[in-house]
């Protein structure tokens, strides 16, 4: 149904795609896998008409096609659901879905009744329970994702491209999405499904194509391939251990939290965290995990309860105070609260450490600072020619390493990681896991929030679970398994 042959696309400085081919059959789900920067998103943007290829041919149903833009792609039956959500927050769900295609009354005004009926019909068909009249800004991220999917389906396109659609969805919502995908597949549509998650691939996809460094590697049927083979194809090397958790001596209590509350968000969270210990924090999206991290670090200070660092009770009312107490916080959202996208790597790495070191009489000691950053860059293996590169040009995994480096330069005693490996590729993921493990080995107390069950189970000494703003339990490593944690997270 969709064929791609010999595509090449170069950007200033990099060849994003080189002689790539890809074939999508009607009525199948075709997974696209590869590390970040492998070229998956670029390829999909070419198919969706956002980029024009330098060379090569795109054929739809056997006929060659030169797309002039995203609109042109839609008219040719290709719809894409983007990783970043592209909805207008101050318009209603229905208006968002039918934008540019609104039903009109006789006088040329928008027919709101018809708009509502159409949306409801679409939602009924997909079994989505969202009010068409609700404004998008009032919806959760997951609901917005569902609206995006419904919008893409509403075009009745033959080809649907989904770029990591589940990254913001909970387990139940993922199941729901998969039901929708199966329904579309049964209608003979071709679905391209970009994902990093292995279990999703085995659950939903019929075929997989793997890319690495802008090159096409291979295509396999999902029934004829194993997990290890795919990982091997993606990274081009064996990953002997996905979660290299080292057993390290556990030291004295570093952090002690008692009955911590943020009014209306979460309440009564208590835990102790020791030197060298990794405490996993699991829970569904909206359970208050990230809010707990923000309260600990003083971004949104706690309204009651106590935090003690090494036995001394402290009041943490700002991130600056938290840093003085030896805390560090790698946030969940790299773009919103992490990176200074317009600045270079150096400027991204040095922000936190400048509050305490490498400054004399207000002047930055450039040389010492650069040496430290340079050493950190090398140790974390950030793939970049120099510290002067703008961080926007790095892949997600490398950006994440820079952000972790920002905090490691402050030599923290207590490190909070919120989704440290979200949206980054398998290779970088393993490196970050190894790094976290090693930090624990050096006596750092780590609190790690993660939505990925294997990561939580593989990395943590203990797992704390939250549900709707309450702490529902702490499970030891030896007693922790997927079932037990899911029970606590959804009780």
């Amino acid at each position, binding site marked *: 149904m969709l064929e791609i042959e010999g595509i090449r696309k170069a950007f200033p400085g990099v060849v994003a795609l080189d002689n790539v081919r890809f074939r999508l059959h009607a009525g199948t789900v075709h997974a696209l896998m590869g590390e970040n920067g492998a070229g998956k998103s670029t390829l999909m943007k070419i198919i969706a008409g956002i980029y024009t290829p330098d060379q090569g041919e795109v054929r739809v149903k056997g006929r060659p096609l030169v797309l002039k833009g995203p609109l042109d792609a839609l008219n040719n039956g290709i719809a894409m659901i983007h990783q970043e959500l592209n909805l207008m927050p101050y318009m209603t769900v229905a208006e968002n879905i039918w934008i540019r295609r609104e039903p009109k009354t006789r006088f040329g005004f928008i027919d709101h009744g018809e708009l509502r009926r159409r949306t409801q019909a679409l939602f009924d068909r997909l079994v989505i329970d969202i009010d068409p009249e609700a404004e998008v800004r009032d919806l959760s991220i997951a609901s917005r994702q569902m609206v995006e999917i419904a919008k893409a389906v509403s075009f009745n396109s033959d080809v649907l491209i989904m770029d990591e659609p589940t990254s913001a969805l909970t387990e139940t919502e993922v199941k729901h999405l998969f039901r929708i995908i199966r329904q579309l597949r049964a209608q003979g549509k071709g679905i391209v499904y970009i994902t990093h998650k292995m279990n999703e691939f085995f659950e939903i996809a019929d075929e997989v194509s793997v890319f690495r460094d802008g090159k096409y590697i291979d295509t396999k049927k999902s029934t004829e391939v194993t997990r290890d083979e795919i990982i091997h194809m993606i990274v081009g090397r064996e990953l002997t251990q996905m979660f290299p958790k080292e057993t390290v001596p556990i030291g004295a209590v570093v952090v002690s939290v008692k009955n911590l509350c943020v009014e209306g968000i979460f309440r009564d969270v208590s835990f102790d965290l020791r030197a060298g210990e990794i405490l996993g924090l699991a829970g569904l999206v909206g359970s208050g995990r990230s809010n707990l991290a923000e309260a600990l670090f003083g971004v949104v200070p706690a309204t009651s309860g106590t935090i003690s660092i090494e036995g001394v009770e402290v009041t943490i009312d700002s991130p600056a105070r938290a840093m003085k107490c030896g805390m560090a916080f790698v946030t969940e959202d790299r773009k919103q609260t992490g990176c200074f996208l*317009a600045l270079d790597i150096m*400027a991204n790495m040095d*922000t936190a450490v400048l509050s305490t070191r490498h400054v004399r009489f207000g002047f930055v000691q450039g040389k010492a600072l650069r040496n*430290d950053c340079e050493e950190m860059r090398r*140790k974390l*293996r950030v793939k970049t*020619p120099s510290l002067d590169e703008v961080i926007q040009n790095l892949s997600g995994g490398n950006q994440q390493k820079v952000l972790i480096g920002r905090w490691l*330069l402050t030599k923290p005693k207590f490190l909070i990681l919120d989704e440290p490996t979200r949206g980054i590729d398998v290779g970088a993921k393993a490196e970050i896991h190894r790094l976290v493990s090693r930090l624990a080995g050096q*006596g750092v107390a780590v609190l790690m929030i993660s939505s990925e069950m294997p990561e939580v189970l593989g990395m943590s000494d203990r797992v704390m679970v939250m549900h709707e703003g309450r702490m529902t339990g702490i499970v030891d490593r030896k007693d922790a398994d997927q079932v037990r944690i899911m029970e606590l997270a959804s009780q």
Partner: protein
Amino acid sequence: MSISKLSVGAKPMTFKPGKRKWPPELSIFLVLVGVSLFFEAIGWYVNDQSFIFNADRLQIIILQMSVIGIIAVGATLVIITSGIDLSSGSVVAATAVVSASLAQVSDFPRAVFPHLTDLAPFWPILAGVTVGLVIGLINGVLIAVTAIPPFIATLGTMVAARGFAKWFTGAMPVSMLTDDFAWIGSGGIPVVIFIVLAAIFQVVLRYTRFGKFTYAIGANRQAAVVSGINVNRHLICIYAVAGLLSGIAGTVTAARAVSGQAGMGVMYELDAIAAVVIGGTSLSGGIGRVTGTVIGVLILGVMTSGFTFIRLDAYYQEMAKGAIIVAAVVADQYRRRKRRC
């Protein structure tokens, strides 16, 4: 914990050093050269004399632009934090009238403060600078504490400061100033003040923590907060500095004109912002340099002088200025779009 124990990978990584990059000011400098050559060429045709190779003209260009330049240095800081300061022109008026009122000679019967005449120039200068600083602080506090957009906050102080200047003078010029005070506006002194201030803030932005944090706040305010930067306090400082610089500009203006008038400095803020933007500072924040702003100021100066030189109306001048501001922002957008790919 030492960094050296952190190594996570087995493979050492090597990279070839990248191509040597040109300083970002180069392209703006080429624009300056281009604009100058343009007037040079037309100058020979129309006037039969050189435009650039005329020491007097160059002096006048720099002298005329130094007041705008002083304001533009502050505007550079503000715009790097992705803010804007519309009040500068009105601050010039307010500080000009206040400083002039304390610099009047004693044999002038209608002095604003008849008992405070023939003062040493230190006092009017201090008063002018203080008024600028206070208005800047008001801007900063409004923006940081009430979280209203800088555009609105400084629009408010812009109107209010102009009103203050009119009330203070009763719409009459404050004249008959002492020679000592007038000295700071004479000869090359304003140029020296401009160059010294530009140099100071070039160093502040590039080599101090204050400068680094300024870029960080402009590039991503939320990330700056999480990185432990006291963003509110920093923004108050930035707007206070911008107000202070406008205060210096206003005092210099009064000294140059040997009078203080409520109508001074009209549209100066826009010229300053234009110079900053032409100089390559991004209105979306996080990017910009004082050196670029200095070149931007010179471009505006050359254009003003050049249009007069080739005997075109001032109206053409304004239209051309408008066009070049828009072109600068378009160029900025284009650069950033290219980087995103």
